[in-house]
């Protein structure tokens, strides 16, 4: 991209962790078994990771450097990395091994960390705030712990990286945001408010089609069998189910003052709230 956008050359080593997920915008659930109907469902890059990738590309434009994208997944996840490459990062690596299958967030973070160590060191590692299919939000912070670097989650803006290599970010809160400063290297997870991802370019797509994407196994990452996949995962999924839809419900309409009063008295009557004079603290 053009040098005119460069704020100052810091030659940043940037990494983005992405995950391939089913495109749930048109996913259906089998009403009998309550499981995802995966047939014919396209795979996409986890949408939050697209914001992470875009932000990495913008940091490269602002401060110079290189962007590396990594993903752990089955061999088909190469398509997600190829897709990512069409937006312009410099390099992509796929971590794929039968031994990685069934990984929980602990094993996933460990595997990704091993790859980041091997490829790094990195100044800024970016990830989406969570994966759309698992929704845990744990992998990003997990990586930071493994690498022994600070992390800030749910970033809505990267203000600047100063010459002393300190980064100022805005972390989204429920009712506003907090400005934080951290020393590089740092891991950041981003929310969708942070940017509007660019469209791919034809040249990017053509280059991506030709790009070599190395595939690394557990052995190449120096990971032991008990550290990865199902074996390295203390989390055990007992059961997956759709919670029953809440039934009934009651709407309190009319003047706010009155409806709140009725609501309170009903809640007190039902024993959900304590009556006046019995609690004390308001």
């Amino acid at each position, binding site marked *: 991209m053009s040098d005119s956008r460069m704020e100052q050359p810091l030659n940043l080593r940037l990494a983005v962790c992405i995950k391939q997920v089913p495109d749930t915008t048109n996913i259906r659930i089998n009403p009998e078994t309550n499981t995802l109907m995966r047939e014919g469902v396209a795979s996409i890059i986890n949408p939050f990771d697209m914001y992470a990738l875009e932000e990495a590309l913008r940091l490269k434009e602002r401060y110079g450097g290189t962007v590396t994208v990594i993903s752990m997944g089955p061999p088909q996840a190469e398509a997600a990395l190829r897709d990512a490459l069409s937006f312009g990062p410099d390099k992509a690596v796929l971590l794929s091994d039968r031994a990685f299958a069934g990984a929980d967030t602990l094993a996933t973070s460990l595997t990704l960390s091993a790859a980041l160590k091997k490829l790094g060191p990195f100044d800024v590692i970016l990830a989406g705030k969570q994966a759309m299919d698992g929704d845990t939000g744990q992998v990003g912070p997990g990586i930071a712990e493994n690498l022994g670097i600070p992390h800030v989650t749910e970033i809505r803006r990267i203000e600047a990286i100063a010459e002393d290599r300190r980064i100022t970010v805005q972390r989204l809160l429920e009712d506003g945001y907090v400005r934080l400063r951290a020393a590089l290297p740092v891991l950041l997870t981003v929310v969708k408010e942070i940017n509007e991802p*660019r*469209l*791919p*370019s*034809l*040249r*990017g*797509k*053509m280059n991506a089609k030709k790009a070599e994407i190395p595939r690394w196994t557990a052995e190449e990452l120096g990971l032991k069998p008990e550290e990865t996949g199902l074996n390295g995962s203390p989390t055990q999924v007992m059961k997956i189910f759709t919670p029953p839809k809440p039934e009934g419900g009651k709407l309190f309409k009319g003047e706010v003052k009155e409806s709140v009063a009725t609501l309170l008295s009903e809640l007190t009557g039902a024993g959900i709230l304590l009556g006046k004079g019995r609690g004390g603290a308001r």
Partner: protein
Amino acid sequence: MNYFLTEEQQMIKDLAAKIAAEKISPLTAKYDEEGIFPHEIVKALGEADLFRVFIPEEYEGLGGGVFEMALVVEELSRVCGGIALAYAASGLGTIPIILFGSDEQKKKYLPRLASGETLAAFALTEAGAGSDASAIRTTAKKDGDSYVITGTKQWITNGGEAEIYTVIALTDPDRGARGSSAIIVERDTPGFTFGKKEDKMGIRASATRELIFDECRVPAGQLLGKEGMGFLVAMKTFDQSRPGVAAQAVGIAQGALDKAVAYSNERKQFGKPISSFQGLQFMLADMATQVEAARALTYQVARNVDAGEKNLAGISAMAKVMASDTAMKVTTDAVQVFGGYGYMREYPVEKMMRDAKITQIYEGTNQIQREVIAMNLIKEQIRGKK
């Protein structure tokens, strides 16, 4: 229908469709209503490398041709024929440089046009010279190492927005059409200003403007080809650009057909969707058949252009006539399918009907196109006899 696109062509088509759906679609109604030029779309098309598709690789293009350009124009026009024109008209302004530019001129202009940071335009028409282009009065007098251009061009698409203009002017007024030449003029040249901005029936997001040359001095090196070649440049350019107008027409028609089919399944009268009435089904069937026929002809002609066929005038005119008449017919029928709702600004098809009309008029009216087609027929017959 499967047109057996290459992987690269499919990629181009998909990317253009993505931009049309995600970026253009939300702006279409507003930009039509207010007549706003789509700067941000031009930027997006540039960043996506779509201006590169018809420019040779040695000048930072992707080495495709008129067919690739037509694929982009069609996809954009499906969503907005007016916004698509910023792209298509830049193509029209770029073709003469590709066809007749010296290596130096190509090096100077094509990479900038390929990136989309700069738009081009083509300026032939004047107030008194429409179908009869030989009636132009703008002159370009040789003066030492420069040409001094004086005159007014009218209804120039991308006027004011483009930075690079191919202008047809008389270098030897006594010789009429044979005394015309094509000259590249840059926007900020002293003596070159812009006049009236037109308020149009359709393609309202497109800029149509007067170019005023008042002793505008340009270096002699800006001449395309040789002196006296102005009309040849114009005609050869139109031979290659008309499939682009045809693609615009096909896109507009396809957009209207899509809307008509969707609406006919939704709208209920007499207790049934109107698509269940045979009277309407036959209309939809004819519309679809005509659109497909127009597309097939347009694609084939575009492919012939890119294959280097010599005698393009007749077939290129056929594609333009067929596709633009189809667009007019299909958009009018789409309004009919929508009934009274179709006549309302709130629904998208009346705009498509307004946009379609221009494709029968510019880059040579359909009457002139038919004349070209007929002349070719007659000439070929006579030649065959000899």
